[in-house]
């Protein structure tokens, strides 16, 4: 299996943390298996374009399935929104750059998608840290009052 597929599966495993605990506990392993099967099939059919499509489904499900199930938790909601907004805006830039402006070799396209994922993950991490910081600050303010 190509490294990009293995990395995708590892990232998806981490993203499962954004789903409701009950779903993760009962079906987490099977969700990863289904994602991995889907990814392999897509790679066989359309290489990076197929992988991008599977990621598009997965990111969309974060909005339609994970977020509604976690809407009461700011620790999940704010990093997820940070991840999604970054991923979507940067994906659009990469897509336009590779499809409309210049022909880019496949290896470089893969590197671009990985950098999109890394930037999105970093933004999500920053959002998580900021949420933790401000949540603690507001708790301290309440205590002082």
């Amino acid at each position: 299996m190509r490294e990009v597929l293995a990395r995708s599966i590892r990232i998806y495993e981490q993203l499962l943390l954004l789903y409701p605990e009950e779903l993760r506990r009962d079906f987490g392993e099977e969700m990863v298996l289904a994602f991995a099967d889907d990814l392999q099939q897509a790679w066989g059919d359309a290489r990076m374009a197929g992988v991008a499509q599977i990621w598009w489904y997965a990111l969309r499900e974060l909005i339609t399935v994970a977020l509604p199930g976690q809407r009461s938790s700011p620790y999940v909601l704010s990093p997820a929104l940070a991840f999604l907004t970054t991923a979507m805006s940067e994906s659009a830039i990469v897509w336009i750059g590779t499809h409309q402006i210049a022909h880019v070799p496949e290896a470089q396209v893969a590197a671009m998608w990985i950098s999109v994922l890394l930037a999105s993950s970093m933004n999500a991490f920053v959002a998580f840290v900021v949420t933790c910081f401000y949540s603690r600050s507001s708790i301290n303010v309440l205590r002082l009052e």
Partner: protein
Amino acid sequence: MEQLPPAAFLILFALASGEKHGYAIMQEARKLSDNTLQIGPATLYTTIQRLLDSDRIHEVPGPKDGDSRRRYYRLTNAGKGALHAELARMEALVKKSKGLRLRPVESSS
């Protein structure tokens, strides 16, 4: 009987031909919808969870030589009933549309 959401209907439809594991259900459901309903793992297992809770499907042992991590699911009588009711509802709608001389838009391809 309440109308089934599209994903639940397609999962029950996919299981009508026999027990399957999650990924096989996902592939069959996509095929049945001509890829118009893009079911991913989260939609699939959220819906499976609801169908298990409502006793429309149940878990069955998989093949002995299969991957032990995969769970297999089968329709229950309640699931078959819900599927048939939904198909009957759709058939009735098609009959009504024919009465109104409504026709699906032909694909240009």
